[in-house]
């Protein structure tokens, strides 16, 4: 249940990250639910492919945004934990 550095988060079947062109934003589509996703969160979710582990995701984002990995990890874990509790992310 808890996410650690070796977790390999992924979107389960039936949950889709999709660009909503009409509203010009990212959305996470799930059963009877739509989550608005900002560009940063979308960047994280695009890396949640079930192949990369959390450490890999954090390293990738730290490089991309030139930010300290510890700060990024804290934000990413909070965001993914929240989605996991809503059953739209698996680890």
């Amino acid at each position, binding site marked *: 249940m808890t996410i650690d550095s070796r977790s390999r988060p992924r979107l389960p079947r*039936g949950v889709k990250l999709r660009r909503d062109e009409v*509203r010009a934003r990212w959305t996470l589509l799930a059963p009877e639910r739509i989550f608005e996703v900002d560009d940063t969160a979308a960047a994280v979710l695009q890396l949640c492919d079930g192949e990369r582990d959390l450490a890999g995701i954090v390293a990738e984002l730290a490089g991309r945004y030139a930010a300290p990995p510890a700060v990024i990890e804290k934000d990413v874990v909070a965001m993914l934990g929240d989605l996991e*509790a809503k059953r739209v992310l698996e680890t």
Partner: protein
Amino acid sequence: MTQPPPPPIGLLVELTHRCPLGCPHCSNPLALERPAAELDTETWNRVFGEAAALGALHVHLSGGEPTARRDIAELTRHAAECGLYTNLITSGVGLSEKLWGDLVGAGLDHAQLSFQGADKATNDRLGHYGGAFEKKLAFAAMVTKAGLPLTVNAVISRANLHQVEKFIELALELGARRLEVAHAQYYGWALLNRAALIPPRKETEEAIALVEAARPKLKGRLVIDMVVPDYYARYPKPCAGGWGRIAINVSPSGKSLPCHAAESIPGLEFWNVRDRSLSEIWRDNPAFKAFRGTDWMREPCRSCDRREIDWGGCRCQALALTGDASATDPACHKSPHHARIAAMAAAEAEADAGDIRWRSYRERIEA
């Protein structure tokens, strides 16, 4: 020129009113549409394309029983190809493994399976279909085996209110990601059967408390959504998320409706998707504009600080219970009719009487 309305989020298509079950709590209209009047494959497919272009994200394939359509897999495939998130709302009765495989292959995203009871006896009685329970269990197993998310939809009335805890256990056993504890809403057949279905207030509140207590314990395993019985509520439900605000319904014959019961309101003209595009309907159909936004409201809605939360509640319920579709929904405690409605509901529940009229094409309904 007025501003065009923001785009809809969801499209609910009642592909057919045919259904093997005979649930007395069905919200379909009493005048069920005949199979011969149903839209053809090509027209539905055009509607899906128009909905996606307009900004709809979810399509709910509903009915009746949507899998009674021979072209259900083809329709699902086209909707998915248009980029819509496809949700099948089904009784789970009558789907072969072959058809299920076709639906999965077509790109179905989610299945919502109704239960009328949490055990065989209750389920099969209320669904008016012997053997339905086993078929539903088999369907649920096919869904989870394919890795698709499963929602269990438990429709709650006086007849099964005591089973709420069992419904939670059933949803967990079946591997559902989501459970809807949906207290029946009294429209169509359910309104006809209200005296036989409406639950007593005390037991209703106990059942609501039970769900609220279960939620935190099941976090991360099962999401429970609850639709409360609004005769006992303090605030009304925002009908369809607000009239003409986020959703479009289309009936089997192509009538576009702001909500599934909208036809019960006299004097509204519902444009047909055979004749007009969905974007034209969404923007200009007078029926969609009739109660859109807040301009139509009177007091106590007009000055209420919840007017953009509840959107005045439900227009069809206001009409059915007060005779005026522009009145505040009497489910709201601010409605002058609220006390009378709650007392009537309590009295009907207390009497514990009323013959059940099973949903069917054949049942004669006197006006």
